[in-house]
């Protein structure tokens, strides 16, 4: 049995490790591609600026964008008594101001949180979640969501997506330069053939690798949110049974799109056939069975 505190500690350590590897990867790829393009580091700078602006915009407006995309409306204390008061209570337990509470009128049970810091936090649940879970289970789910906010996961994932963006842009520019790169002829003799070959390979696989690392970080943060959520309610079993209920539910959440899928507590697309290790690499969320196993052992 591993205590919740050491779970949290281990998850944080792993995130730091993955982030370090990721930074090194981004720097190396950028360096090699930049060198091969023959323009040096100014291109990396440009890539960083463009990707940074794109991510910052989504970082600052993510709450509004997501809510509009999923058709959520503000919750009412009287009508959505349980969701509203449970969110109040978990915020009390976490010592943060009460987040804004939204409801999606969809019978598939699911929930997500967004917002860049505890002052701009939003918690959103579907009608199905409110109806199908008991109050204690609802507490577990909301505590998981509020943990995402408290752990600044939205901020972390924004930084990660800036880096993924840089890699994508640089690879793209490199591939393009191969097409209309006649001008490079003279330079090319200066760069070694090895470096050039490496760049081609990198331009092809780097975006994929970057995305895989991004997904690995996302899964790590899900485990972390489970553990710190359990610390908020002192009731990991309730979250475990909620996760089982949500994943056993057959309904598909129509409000979710590819762009918002990673935000939800349980992957809204639920392609259960792909439980293999390889398919897991491409998932934003760890498998439910593993999350439940860890939670019940707490």
């Amino acid at each position, binding site marked *: 049995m591993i205590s919740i505190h050491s779970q949290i500690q281990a998850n944080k350590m792993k995130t730091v490790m993955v982030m370090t590897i990721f930074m090194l990867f981004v720097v190396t790829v950028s360096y090699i591609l930049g060198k091969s393009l023959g323009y040096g580091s100014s291109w990396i700078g440009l890539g960083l600026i463009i990707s940074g602006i794109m991510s910052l915009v989504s970082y600052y407006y993510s709450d509004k964008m997501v809510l509009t995309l999923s058709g959520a409306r503000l919750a009412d204390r009287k009508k959505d*008594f349980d969701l509203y008061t449970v969110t109040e*209570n978990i915020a009390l*337990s976490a*010592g943060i101001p009460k987040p804004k509470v939204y409801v999606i009128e969809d019978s598939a049970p699911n929930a997500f949180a967004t917002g860049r810091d505890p002052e701009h936090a939003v918690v959103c649940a579907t009608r199905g979640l409110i109806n199908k879970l008991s109050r204690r289970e609802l507490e577990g789910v909301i505590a998981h969501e509020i943990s995402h906010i408290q752990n600044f996961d939205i901020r972390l994932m924004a930084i990660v997506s800036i880096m993924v963006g840089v890699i994508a842009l640089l690879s793209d520019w490199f591939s393009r330069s191969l097409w209309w790169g006649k001008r490079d002829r003279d330079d090319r003799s200066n760069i070694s053939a090895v470096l050039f070959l490496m760049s081609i390979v990198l331009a092809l696989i780097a975006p994929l690798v970057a995305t895989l690392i991004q997904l690995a970080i996302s899964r790590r943060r899900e485990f972390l949110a489970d553990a710190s959520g359990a610390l908020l309610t002192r009731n990991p079993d309730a979250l475990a049974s909620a996760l089982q209920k949500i994943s056993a539910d057959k309904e598909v959440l129509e409000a979710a799109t590819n762009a918002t899928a990673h935000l939800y507590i349980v992957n809204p697309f639920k392609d259960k056939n792909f439980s293999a290790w390889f398919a897991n690499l491409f998932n934003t969320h760890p498998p439910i069975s593993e999350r439940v196993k860890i939670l019940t052992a707490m």
Partner: protein
Amino acid sequence: MLFALAAILGLIALYIWYIYNDLVSSKMRVGEAWSQIDVQLKRRADLIPNLVETVKGYTKHEKKLLENITRARSALLSASSPKEKAQADNQLSGVLKSLFAVAENYPNLKANENFLQLQKELADTEDKVSFSRQHHNTMVMEYNTKLQMFPNALIAGKFNFRDKEYYEAKKEDRKKVEVKFGE
């Protein structure tokens, strides 16, 4: 030489300054967490008169019980130390529990919209008290740990920082709520 000595003394002063401020903000957080419990206890007490009024209209033989509830409420309002408040709150939970058990005998009361709403609100404030208590105790633990640690302990002693009291109630409190309002 003199310069080096001055630099070292300066660094030490800065360090003490930092620890002092850190202890102050920890202490503030405990105070804030405590006032949150207080707010929730007050909210709880405020719901009682309304509840008593509603129940009175439907029951004839429960005078004694209602008196007990009113007494438990005033005990809660007049309690001052964390320990006293925890005890008074426990007491109130106990009598409320018997009230809701007795309510089973009055179908009309059980169907009353107002009564149902109050029952929900009371269950919710009980949750709120327990979650604020949990937050408060976490903050107390953080603060008390800081006081014990070296070198904080030396500074804490000099500036009269004292251990804070935990807000404790019986462990089975959380469970009681679940039993009472089983869906």
